[in-house]
């Protein structure tokens, strides 16, 4: 570092503060440049944290954040004792764990197939098609899903009718709705999640495979005893990182897909917050639930990141 060179020439007693001061001055332009970002950050990230104190208040729009009366933990206890509490927790965890169970293994499977495929054209086509849905919004996904599942003109219902069955309204059926959520997520995101596994596969030392081949291992054995163990650290890391966001069950997706008849199996913490807060104006309650979720999320993220650091040596932050 350049600053260490002239440091020796300064009188030793003053060198500490002097050097710091000079260092600050040297980076003046950096501070000026980033000051706008920092002010932005203070407003858009820290004011909401300040606002979140209304979780402990009975928020009245006219009295504002600071003027509303304190109610202690009443909003929290209202939520925990509400009829919906366990249902919301169950649905949220069900969807995030379900997505993890379906989409991580299918991403691994896809990555291994792409890695092992010798036909370039097929590999490139599937790869391109698999990444694509990640970039489509859930509004667009909803349109695509309706083209498949709509009772009047959907593909699946036309097939059912072809076999003489009655059309099913899948989107408003409490039995099929969770599956639509899980499978549409797998369809949309598996390809994208495969990227990290594909990257890990590319990093495997080819001499391992050569050695296995010389020893007479079959291709199946290669996958079982070399490929999978080699990418195990990445698999563990992805699982742990997903554990850290277990309370995020996918707001945009559920919000687009759900409707009143399926609330009991579709409602997650985030959709409930939206309805209570924005539609019913119960700001205090909705904020309390948001804080509850945020605090849990923080702990989970912290723990999962610690575990990732322990297992793979590098963390998320």
């Amino acid at each position: 570092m350049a600053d260490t060179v002239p440091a020796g020439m300064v009188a030793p007693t003053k060198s500490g503060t002097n050097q710091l001061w000079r260092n600050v001055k040297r980076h003046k332009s950096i501070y000026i440049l980033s000051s706008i970002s920092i002010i932005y950050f203070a407003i858009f990230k820290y004011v909401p944290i300040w606002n979140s104190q209304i979780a402990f208040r009975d928020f009245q729009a006219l009295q504002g954040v600071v003027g509303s009366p304190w109610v202690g933990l009443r909003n929290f206890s209202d939520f925990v004792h509400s009829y919906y509490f366990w249902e919301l927790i169950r649905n949220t965890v069900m969807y995030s764990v379900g997505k993890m169970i379906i989409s991580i293994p299918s991403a691994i499977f896809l990555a291994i197939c792409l890695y092992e495929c010798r036909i370039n054209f097929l590999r490139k086509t599937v790869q391109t098609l698999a990444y694509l849905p990640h970039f489509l919004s859930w509004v667009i996904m909803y349109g695509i899903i309706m083209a498949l599942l709509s009772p009047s003109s959907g593909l699946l219902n036309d097939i059912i009718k072809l076999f003489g069955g009655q059309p099913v309204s899948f989107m408003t059926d409490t039995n099929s709705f969770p599956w639509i959520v899980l499978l549409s997520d797998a369809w949309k995101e598996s390809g994208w999640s495969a990227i990290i596994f594909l990257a890990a596969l590319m990093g495997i030392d080819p001499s391992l495979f050569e050695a296995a081949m010389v020893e007479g291992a079959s291709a199946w054995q290669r996958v079982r005893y070399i490929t999978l163990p080699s990418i195990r650290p990445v698999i563990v890391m992805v699982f742990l990182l997903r554990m850290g966001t277990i309370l995020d069950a996918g707001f945009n997706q559920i919000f687009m897909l759900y409707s009143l008849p399926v609330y009991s199996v579709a409602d997650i913490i985030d959709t409930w917050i939206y309805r209570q807060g924005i539609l019913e104006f119960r700001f205090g309650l909705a904020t309390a639930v948001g804080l509850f979720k945020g605090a849990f999320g923080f702990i989970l993220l912290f723990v999962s990141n610690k575990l990732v650091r322990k297992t793979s040596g590098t963390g998320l932050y």
Partner: protein
Amino acid sequence: MASVIKPSKSDRAFNVFVVASLVLLFIILFIPIWSTITLSFRPNDFIGSALDGMTLPPWRWSVAAFRALLGNNSFVKATINSFRIFFEGIAAALLLTTPLAYALSIKTLPGRKFLYLFVIIPYLFDVGLVPNYLLVTGLGLTNKLAAVYLPGAISVYNTLIMKSFFEGIPEELKESARIDGASEFTVLMRIILPLSKPIMLTIGLYYGVRFWNDFFNAMLYLNDSALQPLPILLRNILLSSGMNEYVEVSAFGEAPIEAIKAASVLLAAIPMLVAYPFIQKYFVKGTMLGSLKG
């Protein structure tokens, strides 16, 4: 691997299994897309099942649904709004993210640790919807397009990806410029930024995709129907059944409502499909960088 050893029977079975799996995956991925495409071209006089629709020969396809949408005032207006959000959003996001990421990447910057903590805390602790809603409405952003992109104009995740890119630029490059008397500002403008085009494009597209696809902020903050972007219009079209005020279907009547819905889905997706080759090229790199490097 180029195998010199003659493949055994089980190896051939393995290869067949891999190819068959990929073909199956292709079909699973392709059918929903294909059914949407064919639905959008369905002519008004079409009779038959969706299966017939999917195998309808192209010379019987009708572009009436697309004509109806592209000639529709609210659709054109929504498209313009979406593009404005897309470009304004990317510009704002890059202008705000880059200096922050660069400041975080300078190891000698006094106060860097504090700055890092300042950035990471809101990332780890998400306070949720309502406090943010109060902020955005309190700032008077209601019914301004900026309400869609400004709340997400600095993503901590993107900032960290950009930071690790900046950190990867060899220190010697900056050092030699400094020895020649360049200020930190000159180093940034003359050395760092010219080298950062790929990361700017990647991060810009990251933001762009998110802004283009956003419907929730738009729904929360844009009540004026003249301001609604494509996802909101699309949502209204999709949720409506039959006649509705959003697309004035009755005024056209040349295309079935399902075809109009499917066509609007495709039109809203087209910009992402056009950007996709670039996205794929740079995103995959960026994602690996972001996921494997801390």
